[in-house]
């Protein structure tokens, strides 16, 4: 709170300290929504620029981290909304690595296996491509609830949406993603 007050009064070093403390968290959180580092950087930059101009609205009732996470969520949602959405992802769009990853993860047992770092990155990339076929709201909700294990209440707090909207959005987003993945898997033989 003291840091926030000092920064609000124009103390640049106080704001620099806020950035130093919370930028790793902001980067990690924004990184859940974007595949390219440049976009993560852009989001984080916007977060701190907005935080600086809105320091007056931070009353110190909640944690600074929570306040910044809410700003990050809104910035990321806006960036997702402004980015181009892919119409559909088909098998022919996948790289060889991605196709190979899908082949190896068709069975339930394989899906539970620990992934190597390299294969994990292939999966993360593929996930990003599948998510890009969904709306910004769908991407946000799936990333938070199914990816980050956030609760419905957490998402309500972060987005300001109603609980019923979050539940319905999650249900629909899950269905769309499942259908998109199912389309990719169709025609492929399970390795079991």
């Amino acid at each position, binding site marked *: 709170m003291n840091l926030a007050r000092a920064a609000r009064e124009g103390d*640049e070093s106080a*704001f*620099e300290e806020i*950035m*130093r403390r919370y*930028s*790793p968290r902001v*980067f*990690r959180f*924004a*990184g*859940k929504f974007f595949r390219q*580092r440049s976009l*993560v*950087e852009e989001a*984080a*930059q916007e977060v*701190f*620029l907005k935080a*600086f101009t809105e320091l007056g609205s931070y009353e110190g009732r909640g944690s600074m981290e929570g306040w910044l996470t809410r700003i990050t969520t809104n910035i990321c949602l806006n960036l997702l909304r402004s980015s181009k959405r892919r119409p559909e992802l088909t098998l022919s769009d996948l790289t060889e690595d991605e196709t190979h990853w*899908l082949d190896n*993860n*068709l*069975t*339930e047992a394989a*899906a539970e296996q620990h*992934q190597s770092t390299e294969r*994990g*990155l292939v*999966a*993360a990339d*593929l*996930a*990003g491509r*599948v*998510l890009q076929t969904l709306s910004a709201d769908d991407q946000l909700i*799936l*990333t938070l*609830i*199914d*990816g*980050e*294990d956030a609760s419905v209440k957490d998402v309500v707090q972060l987005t300001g949406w109603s609980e019923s909207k979050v539940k319905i959005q999650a*249900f629909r987003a*899950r*269905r769309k*993603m*499942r*259908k998109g*993945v*199912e389309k990719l*898997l*169709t025609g492929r033989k*399970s390795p079991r």
Partner: protein
Amino acid sequence: MRDEHIINLIEHTPLANLSEADLNRIRVHTGACSECHSAFQAAQVSRLLLKERAAVEFEPSPFFHTRVLAMLRERQARNETWALGRMWRSAGALASSMAAAVVLLAVFTFVVPENQVASQQVSSLVNSYSAEEVILDQTSPLEEVSDGQMLTTIYDGDEEPSK
């Protein structure tokens, strides 16, 4: 028949939150239903993809803070310039309204009174039958009256009361 499918179950709840009883129900059902089997398989792959996506972490670059601070300073400087520009614009409006007021005052002070004098002169010219004009104006047509006529006029005026 549709109610027995497990598709709704896997879409309503994240797979990680399903109870053991739900998972057993799913396993039993997917063993017999190919449609639900492929849906469940896709849901599992989706979950795995999202988990892998969430596992990717980014760290701030070493110059991130410096860059943001520089952007803040630039933004503040731009705002100050903008504020100065706005002040200048409003001052300009004030100055031009003051200049307009001065011009109006000058018009009322110098141009309007001259017009009034001129109009007074015009009105006196138009009113040529005043006594002063008749007596003093030597250029009037009275000059053309002959002396005889003048005398007749004077004597006629003197004789009238005796009648």
